[in-house]
């Protein structure tokens, strides 16, 4: 059966869209883009309708509406008339999806990028056992001699660390 709404498989058609999206900054971390952050999961055309699939970072992310608005604005300016933004919850967003470029930009901005995600335990584990995990190296001097100062920092996704070598405080984007 011919489905009139089947996706048009043309990578050329979406390359330009990806390029536009790659210029949209994340509202909370303007030094990286929403594509670097890994929240744009899919871009596809259904005839003249463009579908952009987003996976939110955190359930309560306050930037969600703003991200959708900037996507509408940017793509509108790029000449996209019909746009549908879809939210996909599964699979859940993970910091593993942050791109290599995104990690480099974070480091340049003084934020330690997320380490590999720790194994999610299926049973409850008593703190501080999971804390024995690796420490993020300092984004300023690169040394690994750091310690946590607080689980919460300026935003939901970051923790506050201190480097014992260059004695600078820094934020760490928590692996999640």
């Amino acid at each position, binding site marked *: 059966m011919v489905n009139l709404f089947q996706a048009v498989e043309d990578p050329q058609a979406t390359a330009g869209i990806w390029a536009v999206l790659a210029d949209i900054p994340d509202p909370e971390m303007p030094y990286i883009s929403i594509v670097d952050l890994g929240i744009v999961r899919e871009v596809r055309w259904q005839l003249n309708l463009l579908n952009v699939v987003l996976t939110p970072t*955190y*359930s*309560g992310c306050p930037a969600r509406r703003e991200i959708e608005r900037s996507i509408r604005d940017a793509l509108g300016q790029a000449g996209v008339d019909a746009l549908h933004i879809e939210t996909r919850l599964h699979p859940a967003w993970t910091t593993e999806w942050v791109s290599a470029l995104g990690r480099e930009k974070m480091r340049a901005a003084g934020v330690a990028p997320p380490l590999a995600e720790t194994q999610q335990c299926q049973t*409850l584990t008593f703190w501080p056992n999971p804390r024995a995990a690796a420490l993020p190296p300092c984004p300023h001097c690169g040394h690994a001699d750091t310690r946590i100062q*607080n689980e*919460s920092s300026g*935003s939901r996704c970051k923790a506050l660390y201190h480097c014992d070598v260059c004695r600078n405080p820094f934020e760490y984007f928590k692996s999640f």
Partner: protein
Amino acid sequence: MNTLERAGTSLSNYLLRLGDSALIISQQLCGWCGHAPTLEEDVALSNIALDLLGQSRLWLEYAGASMVPAQDEDDLAYRRDAHQFRNVLLVEQPNGNFADTQVRQFLFDSWHCLLLTELSSSTDTKIGAIATKARKEATYHLQHSSQWIVRLGDGSARSHRYAQRALELCADYVGELFEMDAIDLELANVGIGADMAALQPQWQAYVEQVLAAANLVYPANPIKRRGGKRGQHSELLVGVLMEMQHLARSYPGAQW
């Protein structure tokens, strides 16, 4: 009422229980914004509240869509009265002092993590997706509250006394967390819901482990207060709702 309709009602009730419990405890935690003992804790509690609010929106959105006629998340959060809320009684207990809040949160988080883990393999894929997402967040919440239980219980004589007292107050509301009523059983039997009664030993083991490190003792023979899941609440919920719903009710359709 045919079977399908009844299942629909059970599902929306079940989703309301999940959404309302997260919503009410989130609203309670917001009360600490600007009042927590340190700036970092203020940020932490507000962020935990934000996660729980986000989770609640996802549950309520789904609950509302499963109702006839359909309701949106705002209708459910702002335009229902106390007897229509389906949250567990634990979450409507007052913030009290800092130890009261952390003990309430610890008992909630430990239960919540187990519940969400179980629901992440629900046969209802939407429930599974929301639970998988929420569980990642709840793991952080549990680490945070467990850490506080140890600091408070194993801290000064005063903090220890406050934490033990809080535990005695909150323990009466734990029974309801593991209670399996007709709706819970119906959904657990078809693989949509979680069998919480079966998870209680695992919960108890974890809680005992943290309490041992905190020099706190789980109260012997707490009573089991229940009814929240069926809309029987204490007047404590009324105060929480008055504050939470004030703006939406006084200025219907307000936008900002």
